[in-house]
């Protein structure tokens, strides 16, 4: 399963770029990036999902973890998700708490 993720933080905005496929075999790496973003005290978390080809529930759990660890005041956005990925996020009801931008 191919997955690549990178974290950058600038002016309080943490951006995680995810590429490839997120399921139970790769989600721990995404989880670690979310954890690192939270540790750096970001006030906003942006997940660049333009190149995320597949998202399973294990990836969604990391978003729950992000919300739990960063608190309600931190805005979390998923940017540029493909149609099936954004559909999964909506189906799970995560779009009530996480912004979907350009999706």
């Amino acid at each position, binding site marked *: 399963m191919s997955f690549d993720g990178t974290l950058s933080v600038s002016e309080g905005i943490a951006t995680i770029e995810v590429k490839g496929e997120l*399921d*139970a*075999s790769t989600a721990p790496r995404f989880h670690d990036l979310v954890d690192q973003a939270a540790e750096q005290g970001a006030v906003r978390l942006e997940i660049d999902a333009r190149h995320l080809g597949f998202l*399973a529930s294990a990836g969604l759990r990391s978003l*729950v973890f992000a*919300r739990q660890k960063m608190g309600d005041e931190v805005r979390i956005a998923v940017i540029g998700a493909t149609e*099936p990925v954004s559909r999964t996020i909506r189906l799970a009801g*995560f779009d009530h*708490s*996480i912004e979907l931008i350009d999706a």
Partner: protein
Amino acid sequence: MMAIDSGAASAEHTAGQERCKARCAGQPLAAKAASGLRIPADLDSLDLVARFVLELGRQGRLSDSQTYRLRLAADELATNIVMHGYRGASGGICVDGGVEADRVWVRFHDDAPAFDPRTGMKAPDLEVPLGERSVGGLGVFLALTAVDSFDYELVAGRNVSILAIHRSEHG
């Protein structure tokens, strides 16, 4: 009906596939298949499941959306078997599938304790804030909603789940 084997499966699994065929043969199942692959019950096997389903979708001429839904359900079910069926213990999963006139299906056999994965489904509680929400059962929920049918039966002590997408529907 056309049944396929995963051409992408690694050589190390070839012997396992033969065992799978032998073990699956003669069982009174809802659908027949000529071949399949047997994979170790661990998360590294999800890649093999994905490749198997993607090839099946291609052969069944499913749309990209249909193939994605079948793959999502198969990935979630396989994960469920590994994490909640075998609970980290070693074991195997047989995967086969086929293309019929009206549907494309994928079937999983495993020897974990008897468990109907459908009973573990839990729809998201949209009234609960995300950070307080229990995500148990979310994978099965996604699997059940992704496919057009999700059947389970216990056959000779083995868990057998069949996922299917109707070919007549597009999108």
